[in-house]
């Protein structure tokens, strides 16, 4: 499917006049239209929705209507509805309009519009991810400050529980998008030799959907917060104040955004690879990203359903989770965890494959056992659908199923082990080029083995009876999602920074940050393993005096992480603005994104590349067997 060179034939099409309403729509108009809609609908709803016996339900309905109005207004104001409307009326995009939508010649303004260029969307996601991590990190510091103080109890429980819930929710969103957002969008299409993603306008949609819910999320502060963790367990969520409605709305919209992004990335990888790039020559990063979004695609709608039901219970008196009237808390838990377990692999796998992409480059050695990596990734993805009830061993739902779920869960250790095999096999007898991205490879190995092993403890049913709901679990999932996941994302950031920004990320500051974060991380979460083993429950704002030392240690570690992260943030900002200018391929890597100039031109390649081998052709070939 070779493409011709782009010719800008402006004589054939009328000029900017044809661009129409799109040129006037941007982030600002989105906010204005959203706010006006929200206020208007709020007034109308308050008048229309009659005061009855259940005033609390009335407030939920008004809040829901207001949020819906904000959402529709915002998406209208950003221009998301222009596409479908024009499609309906047969007014398809012409060349100028498509170029305009792609952000041609628009400078910085294109980041504040419904821009379709995947590189713009990638940068937008990068800024969003960094912002989310910052907010989530501040919330974490509030948590740790509270817990580091005497026996806790510094922050009142109502506020504290909300902080914990939001820390969880924001970090979950951030870790889900942290690699597929910035790098799945910016890098992946170039890596496969394409000019853009399969559905450029859906790309913009997936980003702006997430932005649209951020004010809704922020509004929870004024709406009483949330009493439950990010997992939104009913019936506790049903009891909660109006802030829970914001939570519900956020989840529903985020699920739609993920589905859209998942369809986009999967189709792009499956249908738009360059000529000659058969599956055995496709970089592992593509496999892993596709595996992640393809897993999310059927998983997140299940979570979405649980929230639709929760909204119906709260706003309309439905009884999905009301046992007196036939409902069941176990239904909620099943729906949540059917999503919840695949979701952790949605988070983890892109981080692992980013590390697998980095390792050959910095070890100067081919990726070891490409096939085993594929088996590992897809083994994990496949098995992850069958393990969810290990989160429910002590729920009492189905004690007879505990054994089978223990089996499936422990089986996952086998494909997971293959991922280690691949990374270790690659660094074995290779170089260790001690640049920033390579540091993350080693940190991930260290953290992932601890995270994985502690997961095995939890997979044992009687062990879980002792450890479930304790800080041990919190430490375990921070080790996997943050120690392995976030570390991989930071490695990816250091690795692809030169391509995305045209500058090198400051090595010195990066190293200082790396050590502060990793050492701080180890201290924080080993302190947490300790208090968990000793019997401290999770999600508590105060605790028995025996847990004091462990919490103090954790808090000291947390402050260390925070300082390290702030240093990294400052490194990102200063490097982006005036760091060392990067050449097109500072790492000497072989994947296609490094074959383009930096900055990457609007349509990536002047001539689409043809691929003849896999991108791990390093080292001296050994003599072949006869």
């Amino acid at each position, binding site marked *: 499917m070779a493409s011709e060179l782009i010719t800008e034939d402006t004589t054939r099409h009328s000029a900017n006049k044809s661009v129409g309403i799109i040129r006037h729509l941007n982030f600002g108009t989105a906010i204005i239209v959203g706010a006006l809609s929200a206020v208007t609908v709020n007034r109308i709803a308050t008048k229309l929705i009659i005061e009855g016996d259940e005033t609390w339900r009335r407030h939920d309905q008004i809040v829901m209507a207001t949020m819906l109005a904000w959402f529709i207004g915002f998406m209208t104001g950003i221009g998301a509805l222009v596409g479908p409307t024009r499609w309906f009326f047969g007014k398809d995009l012409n060349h100028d309009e498509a170029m305009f939508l792609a952000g041609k010649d628009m400078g910085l303004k294109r980041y504040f519009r419904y821009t379709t260029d995947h590189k713009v969307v990638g940068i937008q996601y990068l800024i969003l991810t960094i912002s989310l991590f910052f907010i989530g990190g501040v919330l974490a510091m509030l948590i740790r400050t509270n817990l580091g103080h005497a026996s*806790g109890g510094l922050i009142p*429980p109502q506020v504290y*529980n909300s902080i914990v819930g939001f820390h969880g929710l924001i970090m979950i969103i951030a870790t889900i998008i942290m690699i597929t957002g910035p790098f799945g969008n910016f890098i992946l299409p170039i890596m496969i030799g394409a000019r853009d993603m399969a559905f450029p306008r859906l790309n913009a949609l997936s980003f702006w959907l997430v932005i649209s819910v951020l004010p809704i999320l922020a509004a929870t502060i004024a709406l009483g917060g949330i009493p439950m*963790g990010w997992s939104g*367990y009913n019936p*506790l969520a049903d*009891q909660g104040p109006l802030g829970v409605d914001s939570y519900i709305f956020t989840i529903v919209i985020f699920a739609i955004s993920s589905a859209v992004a998942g369809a986009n990335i999967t189709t792009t990888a499956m249908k738009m690879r360059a000529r000659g790039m058969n599956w055995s020559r496709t970089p592992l990063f593509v496999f892993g990203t596709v595996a992640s979004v393809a897993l999310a695609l059927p998983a997140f709608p299940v979570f979405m359903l649980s929230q639709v039901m929760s909204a119906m219970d709260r706003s309309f008196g439905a009884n999905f989770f009301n*046992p007196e009237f036939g*409902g*069941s*808390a176990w239904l909620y838990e099943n729906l949540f965890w059917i999503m919840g377990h695949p979701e952790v692999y949605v988070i983890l796998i892109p981080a692992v494959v980013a590390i697998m992409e980095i390792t050959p480059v910095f070890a*100067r*050695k081919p990726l*070891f056992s490409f096939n085993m990596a594929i088996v590992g990734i897809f083994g994990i993805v496949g098995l992850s659908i069958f393990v969810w009830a290990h989160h429910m061993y002590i729920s*009492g739902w189905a004690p007879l199923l505990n054994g089978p779920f*223990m*089996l499936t869960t*422990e*089986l996952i*250790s*086998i494909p997971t*082990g*293959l991922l*280690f095999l691949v990374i*270790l*096999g690659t660094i*074995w*007898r*290779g*170089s*260790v080029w001690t640049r920033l991205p390579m540091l993350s490879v080693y940190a991930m*190995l*260290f953290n992932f083995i*601890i995270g994985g092993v502690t997961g*095995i*403890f939890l*997979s*044992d*049913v*009687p*062990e879980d*009876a*002792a450890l*479930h*709901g304790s800080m041990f679990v919190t430490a375990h999932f921070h080790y996997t999602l943050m120690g392995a996941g976030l570390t991989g994302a930071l490695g990816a950031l250091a690795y692809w920074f030169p391509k995305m920004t045209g500058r090198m990320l400051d090595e010195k500051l990066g190293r200082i940050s790396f050590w502060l974060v990793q050492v701080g991380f180890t201290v924080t979460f080993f302190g947490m393993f*300790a208090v968990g*083993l*000793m*019997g401290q*429950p999770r999600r*508590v704002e*105060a605790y*028995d005096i025996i847990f004091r030392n462990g919490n103090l240690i954790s808090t000291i570690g947390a402050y260390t992480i925070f300082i390290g992260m702030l240093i990294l943030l400052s490194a990102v900002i200063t490097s982006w603005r005036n760091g060392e200018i990067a050449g097109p391929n500072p790492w000497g890597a072989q994947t296609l994104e490094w074959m383009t100039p930096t900055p990457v031109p609007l349509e990536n390649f002047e001539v689409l590349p043809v691929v003849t081998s896999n991108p*791990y052709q*390093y*080292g*001296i070939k*050994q*003599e*072949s067997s006869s």
Partner: protein
Amino acid sequence: MQMLSETDEETLSSSPKRFSSFIARKEVQQALRAWVFWAVTLGGLGYLFIPHLMSDSASQTMDIVKSTFMTFYYASVPVAAVVLGIATQTVLHNRHTGTTPPPDENPAIETNQMANIVWVMISSVLCVFLLVWGLVVENVVAEPSRAANAMVVNVTGQQWVWTFNYPVAHKDTNELYLPVDQPVIFKVQSKDVTHAFWIVQMGIKINANRGEITETAVTPNKIGVYDVRCAELCGLLHAHMQTRVHVVSKANYEKWLAEQGSVEQWPAS
């Protein structure tokens, strides 16, 4: 397409010869030393610290919890030591610094059948071990629930207090009293949201659900006072939803049971 190194080619010939030549290689020796270092360090640290962290045991169930933890820990130490050992060897001996990439002169090993097979085999053996251990202990831990002489205590969780009901004596309390060496089955439910009934030192935990009755069982085997905590976020005072369990001699238990009066339940908010 697999490219085999000379030494890998040898692996296809005679077994003991190639194994000893594999072991004799410099980098393998270095990695083995690193492996020993990590195995001893991790094993030693675990041995020193972990048993002290886990609560005192007041039941066979908790004994099993602790021994399971230690066994799994010691089983995972050699595995972790492999990962850390290889990582350490490379960092100590193959470092390349500077702004130019390392020279492209490493062996282009794309796979190694022996490594793949051994790795999968060892993972599978470990997995089977974990599973068998898990099924066995799950069965042992369930023994109190099958005991013929088990007594029943009804547990009710509500925001934010535990109430215990002794059906035989029609007695309600907020602190749990149990006779030593007597299997007890807890029938647990909730009045409002989902809680989790957790006796820390006995290693048992089960959710308390509204509209359902769940069960867990244990045989306390040590006299003393232990902790009951809530292990499922249940709203405002989740952190304070705690009480104590007193394990006493049979005689003292009978005496306590006969005492008049029930504790007033905390009114539901």
